[in-house]
């Protein structure tokens, strides 16, 4: 493995940047979920968020583990410069309201599920088996957020309007986050057919438009909102304890 600072400069077609992108998405989402567990509207939701957050962090650990040993993975999480993180824009958002979290997680999980179906056919060593196993575990997440999106938006016109406003903010971020920076290079590195990820993105977007329409919701394209990238604040929070005594935790 190269030093953490060199990850961002890896060459086209290299597997490591692609795995880093997938792992970073899981790590940041796991951090958000474990951090907000406690302010969900019901106790059971908080238990669920904590459990899902642990799952995501565990998945990140496994993905880093495909190219890094334990010490290297720890440095990637706690010492890597923010500029070297590869997570998508959606994973970099840190929602502070329930319906924003609901929209973020619904879109994150549906995208992860659609991507996992493609990645489970990757020929790169270890990737397919790991993605298939992750998908088994994440079906619980998907069911949870799907149920809450439907429950909340069917509750009342006012509730649906709040969910719609959240989707209006989160959908452009999700749409910009489905693919890695260089999809062709990622497909070659993973051993996927050319265009497989782009096809999956089109199918996911179309399926989610229909699913939302059935709930009286819509997904409106637009530019990602300014200030959506809150990675810096997220990393400060994540590293707060570690930085009191680096290398000792």
């Amino acid at each position, binding site marked *: 493995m190269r030093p953490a600072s060199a990850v961002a400069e890896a060459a086209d077609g290299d597997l490591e940047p692609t795995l880093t992108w997938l792992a970073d998405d899981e790590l940041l989402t796991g951090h958000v979920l474990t951090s907000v567990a406690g302010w969900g509207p019901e106790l059971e939701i908080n238990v*669920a968020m904590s459990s899902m957050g642990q799952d995501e962090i565990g998945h990140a650990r496994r993905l880093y583990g495909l190219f890094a040993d334990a010490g290297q993975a720890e440095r990637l999480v706690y010492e890597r410069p923010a500029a070297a993180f590869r997570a998508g824009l959606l994973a970099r958002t840190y929602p502070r309201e329930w319906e924003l979290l609901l929209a973020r997680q619904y879109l994150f999980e549906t995208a992860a599920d659609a991507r996992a179906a493609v990645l489970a056919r990757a020929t790169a060593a270890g990737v397919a088996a790991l993605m298939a196993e992750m998908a*088994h575990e994440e079906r619980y997440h998907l069911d949870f957020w799907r149920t809450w999106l439907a429950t909340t938006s069917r509750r009342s016109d006012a509730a649906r309007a709040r969910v719609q406003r959240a989707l209006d903010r989160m959908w452009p971020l999700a749409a910009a986050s489905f693919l890695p920076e260089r999809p062709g290079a990622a497909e070659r590195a993973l051993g996927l057919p050319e265009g497989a990820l782009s096809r999956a993105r089109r199918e996911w977007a179309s399926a989610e438009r229909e699913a939302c329409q059935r709930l009286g919701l819509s997904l409106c394209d637009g530019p990602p909102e300014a200030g959506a990238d809150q990675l810096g604040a997220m990393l400060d929070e994540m590293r707060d304890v570690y930085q009191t005594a680096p290398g000792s935790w």
Partner: protein
Amino acid sequence: MSAVPPPDRAREREVMRALAAVEDPELPVSIVDLGMVRAVTVRGSRAVVELVPTFLACPALWMVESEVRRSVTALPGVAECEVAWRAGGWSGADVTEAGRRALAGAGLAAPAAGGEVACPFCGSPDVRPASPFGSAVCRSAAYCDRCRTPFEVLKDKRSTGGAAPVSGAPDVPAPVGPPAGGHPAP
């Protein structure tokens, strides 16, 4: 090139006995009864233990790995122990009868091969899911309508009963735990 020693079946049985004493740190049951051990191979003084994780994010996996290594290398004639994590999805059906009894004693149920769940307290099949998320990542919550008692169920991951691969290169990267020697005090 030196010849690969043949499998030592007698020593493999000794390793399995040693593994039967390794408990899951979060469950009152050995990793053998939990169905986590998929294969053991001993050639010469080197053992390879193939395990499946119940859940990928289980925070106890690195402890299991470390305890397996310690227990196996404590056996006479075993100098080295490799732990290989396999994919394929652990399932409740992998739990032995002894494991089910031990889990039931702690108010936990493991689904049968067809996914059926019985109450660990009264044995009734008249149970219903309460929440897919329980007190640990590998557990969901359920309720028995007969004895009116809540209990937890180990989550099943193998939806279609596909068998896990048991040989070849590790499928799942090793769990990333703390560095050898554990966490020093800050």
